[in-house]
């Protein structure tokens, strides 16, 4: 399931929901657009569409190569509209392609999370306790698109990979950094709703308390058949 909701702060400022998420049977992908980039919602949606057209896009072994290919194709396609390389970087990459990439893959025996940028991994342990792992890198988090910019310091950064044994963690999900109010406990009972993995209920709970969320919220999880076994 993918749940995405515009943050109330963005609503009041007249900004679109810059997050986006897609899913297949083996993968959930969350893209969290940078608030500072003018058209990051365009970048997230464009990237997701093209990424899904890649062969075996939901195979974790090929994930990093696929991401790289899509970025190169997008930049290659758009370069002809700009006169210099600097313009491409400044006006296309920096305004469109700055977004966090978090993907969760489900294999027979484990969940594998790959992330580039800041966000959350949500896990449920054997006893049914939810944990929110926060990955935060300050005001200027690294974005994959910086690899295509000449003056950035993030050229050598790689995807982070985390593996979760499905016997120990029956449910694993991912989220954008906008879920912070949930982690802080501002939404009473949200842990129970998330651990049941019911898309409609999670979505309703977030939208009912929309004013808590200043940033856009996106959660990606596999439907809760595993989690429900425990409940």
């Amino acid at each position, binding site marked *: 399931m993918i749940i995405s909701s515009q943050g109330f702060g963005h609503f009041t400022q007249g900004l679109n929901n810059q997050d986006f998420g897609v899913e297949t049977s083996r993968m959930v992908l969350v893209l969290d657009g940078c608030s500072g980039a003018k058209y990051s919602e365009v970048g997230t949606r464009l990237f997701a569409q093209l990424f899904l057209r890649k062969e075996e896009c939901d195979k974790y072994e090929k994930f990093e190569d696929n991401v790289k290919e899509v970025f190169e194709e997008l930049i290659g396609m758009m370069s002809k509209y700009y006169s210099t390389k600097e313009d491409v970087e400044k006006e296309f990459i920096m305004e469109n392609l700055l977004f966090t990439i978090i993907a969760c893959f489900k294999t027979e025996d484990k969940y594998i999370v790959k992330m580039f940028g800041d966000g959350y*991994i949500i*896990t449920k*342990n*054997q*006893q*049914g*306790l*939810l*944990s*929110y*792992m*926060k*990955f*935060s*890198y*300050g005001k200027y*988090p*690294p974005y994959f698109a910086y690899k295509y910019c000449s003056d950035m310091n*993030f050229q050598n*950064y790689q995807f*982070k990979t*985390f*593996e*979760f044994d499905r016997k*120990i*963690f029956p449910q694993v999900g991912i989220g954008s950094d906008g879920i912070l109010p949930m*982690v802080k*406990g501002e939404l009473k009972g949200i*842990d129970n709703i998330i651990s049941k993995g019911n898309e409609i209920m999670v979505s309703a709970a977030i939208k009912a308390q929309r004013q808590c969320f200043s940033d856009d919220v996106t959660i990606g999880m596999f439907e809760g058949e595993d989690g429900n076994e425990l409940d």
Partner: protein
Amino acid sequence: MNWIKNLLGEKDKGNNGQSSNNSPKDKPVRDYSAEMIPLEELYMSEELYLVESLDLPQRESKPNTDVQRRVTQLVETVKSDDRTIDKDPKGPVNPKGAIKPNQGNKVFAPRIPEIEKTLTIIIIENTNETAKEKDKLEMIVKKLVAKGLVYVINYGKKVREGKVVEAKQFNCSELLYQSDIGDNACLFDAIIALERVVEKNYMKFAELDNKRLVIRNIEIIGIGRCIDNCSITSSQIAIDSFTKIAKQFDITSKYICLSEESFVEAAKVGFRSIVSISRKYM
């Protein structure tokens, strides 16, 4: 008090204040319905106290109408309530803390003011690795335990427990022991100690001078790498104990890892919020 008399008399006469054939004189009767106070309001009105001063013959006789019966009941209620209003000439009406008998002769104990405090339990790994980050950890802990009560469980080769202190008196430099420091960490034994502390303090009242202290919120803060290599307690028992604690209402947990590598270990135990002290993208 004419309105009461009219209220009672009027109902006898018939509906809507119209005069009936039984009236002694065939005078046109004034319509008081607009002036009447609803009975619900009447009950709350001060004027009700004046009702008992009326000599209403209807009270002795069988009430004729529903309204009359209700007014009679109200008068009875006011009378009985009036008994509970202290009119004891010996002393003040209701001195503070006095035991006040009510109409049912029930006795209420004087109410002691309650003070609610949050207890922060810090469960910190005392190893070489954490000692390297001592300054950073002290700063983080200082911010986290600004108010309430603090209790520190320090674990390395063995578990050391402090005592409950006020946050203002808490000295962050006591977080880590400099002696007996190594690479061993008995996290699971520390979790058992944690369970004991929670049981001892959660929702328990402590009597102070004229006050009662109660801890309704507990925040557990783990610090370290969330590893265990020398506990007597098994991981399963420790995790079950932690689950028992964490599932209780108003108990929250957080783990501050030295690096993101420890996140998975902290999630295995079941800490709710897991963060790293470092913001560097490694």
